[in-house]
Every structure is written in C-alpha cells, then in structure tokens.
C-alpha cells in the first residue's frame, strides 16, 4: 500500500506544518458548524504535497462531514459542476442533518481540458447559493482567480499553504520508519527532507521507494534520482496499457501530469514490451501513429484543441487495440529518445546559437545557416588566420568555436580576442 495513503492524517491536528493555515481553516469550519460563515467557501492554495487536500479531508473527518469530491479525473465542465457541486451544495445529505463538504481539487486547471469556459462561472454560481461548505484547492491562486474567476476573490476566503519545514518532515519520516519497523540512517532522512523542498508527499514517496528492506543505509540515497516521477508514470502506463476499455485508459491519461508529446514517447517505448502478440502490436502502433499525426497538427497550427484527439488515440486507441490479455509484471523503460535528447541538449543548444550568429552575418535564417555549418567548419579549418578573424567578427565563444574547428578552438579563440582588442583600440584611435 502507498504510504502517502496509509499515513494520511485523519485529523487536522495530525497534519504537519502550516500552523497558521490550519488555524484559519479550523476557524472557517467552526463558523459553518455554528451556522453563520462569513465566507461560504475557502481556497486552499500552495505547492503540491504541502497538505491542502489532506487538510480538507481531515477537517471533514474532524467535524463528521460527508464528502463530495470532484477531482481532475472527472470531466469538469459547466454541466457536470452544476450536476455534482451545485446539487450537493443546495441539498441536504441522505443521512439527514449532517453537513457535506464539497471539495474541488485542482480547481486552477479545470477548464483547458474540454475547452469549456463555463466551469469557473459554474463554481461562482455554486458558491453564491451554497448551503454547504465548499473547498477549492489550487496550486496557483492567480490562475484560479483570473478571467471569470475574479469573482472568487470576493466570495472565498483564501488560505495559503506554505512549504513544510525540513525538521517537521524528518520527524514525520522517522515516525513512519518506526511504525514500519525500519532501521534508518538519520542522514538519509535529512537528505530526503532536503531534496523534497517542502513537499511532504514526495518525501514519503521517496522514503517508500528506497525502503524495500528493513534497513536503509546511506547508500540508498543514490537510488533516489528521479524515481518518484518515473514511478508515477510507470503506474499510469501500466493502467493504460492493461485497460480493457476506452474510458479507463483515457481517464488514466488525464490523471498523469504528462504532456501528450511525452506520453506518446513513453507509450512508444514500452508498447513492444507489454504487447507480446504481433497483431496486437501492429494495431496499437497504427493508433499511436494516428495520435502522432494529431500532435503534428497541434504543433503546426498551434491549436491545442487537437491534443484531446491525440491523447485519446494514444491511450484509449492503444488500449483497445489488444485482443489478448497480458498479465504479470512488466518492467517499463524510460524513453530512449528523451534520454538521448536530454544528453545532447547542451550540444544542440550550442549549435543553434552558432547558427544564429552565423545567420545574422550572412543574411539568412538561422535554420539555413544551420545547414551551412559543415561548410563553415571546413572554411574555418582551412585557414587559422581567417578563422580567427571570422571568430572575432562573429563574436564566437570558445565552445562555439570548438564545434567548428575542434581542438584548435583554444588557440584561435585567443587570437580572435587579440584581434578584437586591437580593433577596439583602432576605433578609439580614430576618434582622437
């Protein structure tokens, strides 16, 4: 079981950090209990993993409120917000007399998904008429209150959740280790708490990811890496590829915080590992390539509405392409293409800069200049003197030069700097 779930505090007093925010939240909830809240809704905002959602659930539990939630995996357009949040807001509970807390998670990214702009307005409408407490949760407060969300500023109480202190995180991790019966080097906990940067959820995930034995030594720190983010996508990928129907697969994709471009690479890389039958694989790649066509169109037309089609094809399409059932554990891989692109990033950046400088000089686009790079490399190599003068003129740095002339770069760079200095002096001299 996921430790973040297992050790999710049930009561607000057990939520670590954010003392002030918790007090504010408690005050608001008490106002509701007494019947007359000054603001009917609160916005809990702050970085991921600092306890916003946990606090919302905890306060509901503390006051024995029923919970109605709408999270990012639901399709939250105007119609659905009205049907769920509004219905929940103006009606009693089925148990009679109890209060119901309506939680809108990730409220700052409601609307892009369906290209629907009525979502924020439906929330405002709901808060105006609500007879039940409402919590909006957002990472980015300003994203939430911009546009038609401006009204939210007036009708909601905003509570900021700050990063949780390192000490508190270490104490929590230590407690978890005790409860799990794990012996741990304190240095490991310090490192985890340091690199999670106030994000308690990722700290707990990190701890769990290295805790496969009852003893964690210092060496484990090196295993941390990018593990948490990768693990999330591994789970998502597993669910997408094993899904038996369109909707499950698509919904899973929404849950993942991954752009369609990246997701496509992940699926591309891991399809052949998962789908063992050739005909399944052929059909799946057919869908994947269609998804890619849409991604191309998104890019060309700069129209992100097409992302939806791409996502559905690459997840739902691929999921239903299989006629066989696959079982057992599959070890997924990180996309090779991404890895090699990441490795070559600096190099490509350098080359692009060089092409830009060159393009300006020879009056053509940087793209064209890019194609001419080999020619220039030859030119630079053929004559050191010319190379130095060109380098001075183009204001190339040593790294850029090394792309053109290789090992001689240092020498030529020095010479170019000399030339530049001389030229500067010449200019000054002329002024005199």
């Amino acid at each position, binding site marked *: 079981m996921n430790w973040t779930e297992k050790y999710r505090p049930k009561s607000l007093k057990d939520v670590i950090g954010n003392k002030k925010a918790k007090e504010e939240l408690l005050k608001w909830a008490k106002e509701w209990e007494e019947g007359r809240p000054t603001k009917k809704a609160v916005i809990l905002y702050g970085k991921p993993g600092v306890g916003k959602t946990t606090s919302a659930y905890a306060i509901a539990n503390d006051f024995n409120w029923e919970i109605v939630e709408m999270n990012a995996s639901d399709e939250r357009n105007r119609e659905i917000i009205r049907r769920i949040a509004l219905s929940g807001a103006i*009606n009693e509970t089925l148990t*009679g007399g109890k209060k119901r807390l309506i939680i809108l998670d990730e409220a700052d990214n409601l609307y892009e998904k369906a290209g629907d702009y009525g979502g924020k307005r439906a929330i405002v409408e709901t808060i105006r008429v609500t007879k*039940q407490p409402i919590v909006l949760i957002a990472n980015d407060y300003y994203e939430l209150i911009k546009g038609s969300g401006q009204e939210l500023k007036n009708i909601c109480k905003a509570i900021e959740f700050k990063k949780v202190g390192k000490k508190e995180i270490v104490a929590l991790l230590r407690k978890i280790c005790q409860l799990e019966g794990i012996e741990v080097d304190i240095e490991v906990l310090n490192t985890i708490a340091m690199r999670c940067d106030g994000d308690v959820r990722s700290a707990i995930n990190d701890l769990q990811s290295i805790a496969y034995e009852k003893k964690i030594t210092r060496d484990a720190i090196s295993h941390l890496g990018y593990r948490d983010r990768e693990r999330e996508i591994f789970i998502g990928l597993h669910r997408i590829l094993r899904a038996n*129907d369109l909707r499950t697969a698509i919904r899973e994709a929404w849950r993942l915080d991954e752009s369609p471009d990246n997701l496509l690479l992940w699926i591309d890389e891991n399809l052949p590992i998962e789908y063992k039958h050739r005909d399944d694989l052929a059909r799946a790649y057919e869908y994947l390539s269609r998804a890619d066509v849409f991604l191309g169109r998104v890019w060309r037309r700069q129209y992100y509405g097409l992302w939806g089609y791409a996502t559905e094809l690459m997840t739902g399409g691929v999921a239903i392409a299989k006629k066989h*059932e696959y079982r057992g554990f599959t070890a997924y891989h990180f996309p090779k293409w991404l890895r090699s692109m990441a490795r070559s990033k600096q190099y490509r950046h350098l080359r692009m800069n060089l092409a830009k400088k060159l393009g300006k000089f020879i009056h053509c686009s940087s793209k064209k200049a890019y194609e001419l790079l080999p020619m220039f490399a030859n030119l630079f190599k053929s004559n050191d003197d010319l190379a130095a003068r060109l380098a001075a003129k183009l204001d190339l740095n040593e790294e850029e030069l090394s792309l053109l002339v290789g090992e001689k770069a240092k020498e030529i760079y020095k010479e170019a700097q000399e030339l530049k200095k001389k030229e500067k002096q010449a200019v000054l001299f002329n002024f005199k």
Partner: protein
Amino acid sequence: MFQGKIKANFIKTIIDATAILVDEAKFKIADDGIYGRTVDPAHVGMIDFKLKKEAFDDYDCKEETEIGIDLDKLKTALKVATSEEMVELKYEKEEGRLKVSIGNLTRKIALLDVTEMPDTKIPSLELPAEIVISTVEFHQAIKAAESISDHVTLIADKESFELVAEGDTDIVELRLSKEQLYSLKCEERVKSMFPLDYLSDMVKVARGKSEELTINLGNNYPIKLSFEMAGGYIKIMYLLAPRIESE
C-alpha cells in the same frame, strides 16, 4: 459464472432506474438474484434495487461476484429489444465481459473495474409517515410542479397528503384525502422540500411500471420512494435528500 433470461422490460427498467443517478454502477450477482445500490456523485440521491432470481427464467449463479457496468453501453445494447422480448445475460469471470443475447444477436460488453467503486450503505432513517399513492397521479403533479419551479414541498398529516410548488408567479397544488390514497399512515404533520430534477426522474421511472408508489416522509428529512414490479420479484427503492430551505 452467471446466466439468466429476463424480460427486456424488466432489465431495461433496472438500468434506466440506476442511470438517472450515475453513469457507472456496481451490481452484485448472488445466488438468489442481482442487487445494486448506488449513490449519485453529489450524494443527494440513492437507489437500491433487488432483482430476485424468480424474475428470471433459468437463473443460474455459481459464485457470487460483483460487476461494474457502463450503464449507457448496456442501455444501447438493450435498445434493440422490444419490451416483451427475452434477453439472455451471461457472465464468465475469465472473459471479463457481459454477454447480452437478444434472439440470435449477441453483444459482449466490456466491464469496468469494481475495485474503485465504493460500497454504499443505506442510512438508517426514521420516516414517520407512509403514503401509498397512484403513480400516475403523483407523476402528473410532479410534472406540473416542474413547469413552474425547481423544488417541491411534500406535506402529510393524519388526514391528507399534499404537494405544493411555488414558482415566481404561479402555484401548483395537489391535495389528496386519506380516502383518495391507497393508504396513509401518519401520526403527526411532517413537511419536507425536495429538488425536482431528481424527484421527477425518479417518479418517471416508476410511471407505467407500477400502479402504486410508496412514499416515506419525515420532517426536513430524506424521502424514500419505493415500488415493485413482476409480482414483487423486482423491488426498486430511492432515497432523496431534502433541499435546504432558505432562511
């Protein structure tokens, strides 16, 4: 494994009855019938139905299971059947699909994962008033109310049952004395207000299926609506939370 034949009308009613609240539902298949209990996402309405095995021909269930159904899908699958036609349902664990046969036509429907679907408990409610009313008459009144308002007030006392809806300008009323009802059990006056969008959907399901509709009512408390079909082998019960009255 499970299989059974049932009149299209019956299974359609069950699906429609559930679909007014949710898009997906978990059904329990047991050796004595099929059960479903679901709450809508806003936690305002609940359905609880029992489809006894006697409502089926050749009902056979070897092992109790739960299946997750995409209601819309099953609805379209059943659309081709006329209401008197027999529908054969078959489910085998290994296949993971529900096989729906109508005549020689079969459709295999992929099922949903039930692990994430929560179990629902029926809240224990004290509902002092019980009214048995003509479904047609109640439906008529709800329809009239719906045209002028989005909520309706139901009142019962020792002698009568009353439905009142007030719109901006108009008023709809239905008043039935004890004699005009099938039965009325009520010691003291109770009154609750309900959202019409839910209530209307619920009553619509009952209309044409059952002559009588049983209403259990309390004071600012949820309402219970129940009716039976197929000689009592199919039981459908709805719970609906009241509207919070504005002060």
